[in-house]
């Protein structure tokens, strides 16, 4: 689903917190086989976000979309929904984190999007590691 939005303009209607004056972003998939894309503001060349499909890193990720957001971007059916999470890039890249507390939800049928802030009781943070270290069960 990510590929079908490549090069498309998504209107976030000022919903990205901290960037309420920015609406239109162009989505560019980084490479066909990876879950990464770049969201570039069409109104401010200095503003862009590396985003990814969170399920590629966190397969169990799930949440409810509050009515407010469903209304704002006109979601009528689940098939219209694409979820992306903003990545905070760290050096080295393996230390980068993604924001699972406030994903970007895009309605692919009308190219409207919104940053959806999940309720406080959700188990996710704005800084979830992309690459989890697998702990070896050695009984330590």
């Amino acid at each position, binding site marked *: 689903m990510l590929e079908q939005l490549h090069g498309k303009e998504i209107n976030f209607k000022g919903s990205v917190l901290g960037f309420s004056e920015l609406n239109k972003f162009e989505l560019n998939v980084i490479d066909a086989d990876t879950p*990464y894309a*770049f969201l570039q503001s069409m109104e401010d060349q200095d*503003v862009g976000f*590396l985003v990814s499909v969170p399920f590629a890193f966190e397969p169990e990720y799930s949440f409810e979309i509050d009515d*407010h957001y469903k*209304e704002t971007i006109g979601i009528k059916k689940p098939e219209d929904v694409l979820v992306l999470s903003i990545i905070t*890039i760290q050096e080295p890249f393996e230390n980068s984190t993604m924001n699972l507390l*406030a994903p970007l939800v895009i309605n692919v049928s009308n190219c409207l999007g919104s940053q959806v*802030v999940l309720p*406080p009781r959700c188990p996710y943070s704005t800084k979830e590691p992309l690459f989890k270290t697998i702990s070896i069960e050695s009984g330590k």
Partner: protein
Amino acid sequence: MIGNDIEIIISAVDGEQVKIGINAPSSINILRKEIFETVQQSNLEAVTGKFNLQKLRKIQK
């Protein structure tokens, strides 16, 4: 009432504790301030310019 559509209600009083609720149309987004600030801060830290795109193309999956 705040404006025509937003209502602040006192939903419970327990000694010195007061519970406040907000009634508003679903078109209005209500967020706790500390959550708003946490997300805003995270967005600001995540912003990256177009010039980083070439560097990002080298990312391994």
